[in-house]
């Protein structure tokens, strides 16, 4: 309570509140632009903080960080281009819903649940920072391997009618993540002497290629007239903001995803992307109608967007209490705040509690302001859908190119994105699963490095690695959840043959 009072005292100053508003506006816009990730948004925001005091800097950067994650969902829904990697699962249901003529509904779900996730995580952050920080420190490589493996357990559920092809897709993603310099022994894997491949396959160009370019290629092949998405599909469903009743019906999804997002955000090295995939997975698993996911299910959008925003609050826990940044954006914020004289780590709570309070109050205000700002931004973006596809499709390709190029100012990434897009076209044409491949690629590096480090720490004793209580429980749950859809197919077949 003392912390909240301190936070209110330092943040509720007109100039700070104005900067929070400004940070939210630029955060949402930066996040919505493909190629400007949450980390890049924070970097771009840094320039504004040079003349500010620590509290105002904290408030401003927190506003940019939280709203950038939310902004990423806007382009994921409208164009199938995730503005930030953590919005990738939002494309699974958000884009189909927009294609069905309900872009505003999809956007309103995304923005409102993002806000709820962010506020919930901020409250949890204050309540459980000391306890959860010490628990997270107990997570070694084997536990982190198990958590990442849990993210993979969705594979077989992504397309239950095509389990083998989905598994192949996921395994291919995991294999693609092994390309480049070996993280432990430092030798080149699958590079065939090509120096560009040494740094590995960049996740963002592949993601943009397989989502955006593949989609544009599909439309190029099938579309002969000038028409927009709504007209092409011939669907005229009622569009509008989600009702309070519909939102209440999703309370279970929002609560689960908020908790998953916060917890995953706290784990060092995990972050918003894994949180979003993991909570989407969980929702597919617990749903009575998993077949609706991937086709415009509102709960799919809610799961992904609640979790990625909750992870922003979670990632603040190790950052503030232990001085361990949960991800890239948190690392950038940390360096900026240290520059301002903020003492990150266990001493922060004792010596500079006002900064901790400032983070909490800024997150609360940002998440409230964000809903209104995002609606205004989203409204402008949603108008874009009525532009003829001959212009919109081409602009999507250009945005995808800039998004890939901006990563490291390399046209090699643009070529990689195009190849991924063309490959993605064939891949989905033959029934394979693009999201499963992306899931494998996202989790691949983390799974491999943690598994190998765990084996190294236990001197090659695999039993010791897998028999640790937390690891064993998570792995058993993940394995059951991975094979359950396969077992279900056999059970259904048996039932059918008995009948």
């Amino acid at each position, binding site marked *: 309570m003392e912390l909240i009072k301190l936070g209110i005292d330092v943040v509720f100053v007109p100039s700070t509140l104005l900067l929070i508003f400004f940070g939210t506006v630029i955060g949402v816009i*930066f996040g919505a*632009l493909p*190629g*400007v990730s949450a980390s890049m948004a924070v970097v*771009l925001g840094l320039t504004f903080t040079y003349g500010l005091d620590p509290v105002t800097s904290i408030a401003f950067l927190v506003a940019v960080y939280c709203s950038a994650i939310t902004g990423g969902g806007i382009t994921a829904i409208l164009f199938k281009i995730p503005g930030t990697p953590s919005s990738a699962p939002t494309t699974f249901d958000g884009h189909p819903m927009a294609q069905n003529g309900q872009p505003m509904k999809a956007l309103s779900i995304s923005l409102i649940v993002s806000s709820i996730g962010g506020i919930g995580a901020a409250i949890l952050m204050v309540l459980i920072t000391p306890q959860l920080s010490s628990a997270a420190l107990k997570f070694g490589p084997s536990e982190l391997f198990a958590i990442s493996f849990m993210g993979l357990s969705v594979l077989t559920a992504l397309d239950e009618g095509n389990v*083998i*092809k989905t*598994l*192949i897709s996921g*395994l*291919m993603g*995991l*294999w693609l993540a*092994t390309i480049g310099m070996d993280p432990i*022994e430092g*030798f*080149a*894997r*699958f590079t065939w002497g090509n120096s560009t491949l040494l740094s590995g396959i960049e996740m963002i160009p592949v993601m943009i290629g397989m989502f955006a*370019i593949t989609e*544009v*290629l599909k*439309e*190029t*092949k099938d*579309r*002969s*007239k*000038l028409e927009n998405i709504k007209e092409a599909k011939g669907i005229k469903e009622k569009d509008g903001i989600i009702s309070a009743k519909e939102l209440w019906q999703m309370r279970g999804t929002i609560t689960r995803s908020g908790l998953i997002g916060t917890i995953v955000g706290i784990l060092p090295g995990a972050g918003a992307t894994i949180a979003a995939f993991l909570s989407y997975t969980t929702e597919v698993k617990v749903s009575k109608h998993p077949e609706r996911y991937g086709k415009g299910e509102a709960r799919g959008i809610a799961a992904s967007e609640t979790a990625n925003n909750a992870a922003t609050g979670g990632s603040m826990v190790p950052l503030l209490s232990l001085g361990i940044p949960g991800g890239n954006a948190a690392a950038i914020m940390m360096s900026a705040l240290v520059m301002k004289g903020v003492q990150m780590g266990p001493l922060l709570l004792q010596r500079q509690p006002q900064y901790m309070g400032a983070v909490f109050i800024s997150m609360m205000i940002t998440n409230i302001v964000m809903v209104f700002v995002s609606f205004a931004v989203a409204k402008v973006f949603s108008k874009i859908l009525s532009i*003829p*596809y*001959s*212009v919109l*499709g*081409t*602009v999507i*390709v*250009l945005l995808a*190119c*800039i998004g890939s*190029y*901006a990563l490291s*100012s390399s*046209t090699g990434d*643009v*070529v990689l*994105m*195009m*190849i991924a*897009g*063309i490959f993605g*076209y064939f891949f989905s044409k*033959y*029934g394979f699963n693009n999201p499963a491949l992306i899931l494998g690629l996202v989790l691949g590096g983390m799974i*491999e490095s943690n*598994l*190998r480090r765990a*084996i*190294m720490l236990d001197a*090659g004793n695999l039993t010791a690695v897998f028999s640790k209580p937390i690891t064993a429980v998570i792995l058993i749950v993940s394995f059951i959840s991975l094979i359950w859809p396969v077992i279900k197919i056999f059970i259904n077949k048996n039932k059918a043959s008995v009948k």
Partner: protein
Amino acid sequence: MAQELLFNVGLIIFFIYCFFYVGATAPDPVQGQMDGAQWPQILLVLLAICLAANIYKIIKNGKNGEGFKINLDIKKIVTNKFFKGSVVLLIYSLSLDYLGFISGSILFFMLYSRLLGQKNIIKLILSSVISVVILYVLFNTVLDIMLPRGTGIFRTFALFVESIL
């Protein structure tokens, strides 16, 4: 069906090759560690097993239904919109370093927009120039994300446009 079978067979051959390739290029294993080749090899074995199962499924379905006919009509492939679109995308991405973002994107925009059905030349030119300039100003000028300027005459052109903007 035949194309799908070929796609899967191609993948399985490639992954079997990768299995041996990574084994041959990896350093000697160290006691008590999982070496850098083992993890990809585990994945490649699983991939080969799953692909073999998928190929079996395709063959089984083929025998029961459509069969395996390969219709290699070159003219049909080349005139296909997907093929044309892919070629334009690849050429655009490969030429970005030489043409630069402004010139390359205006040309690309006109070609791709035409492919997507826009036949009015005036609209093509206007929409391409306006869209590229808006994106260039937004990313290059406002967000300070340096976009490729190209080489030679294209670089001079990009610098000229930048001086106006």
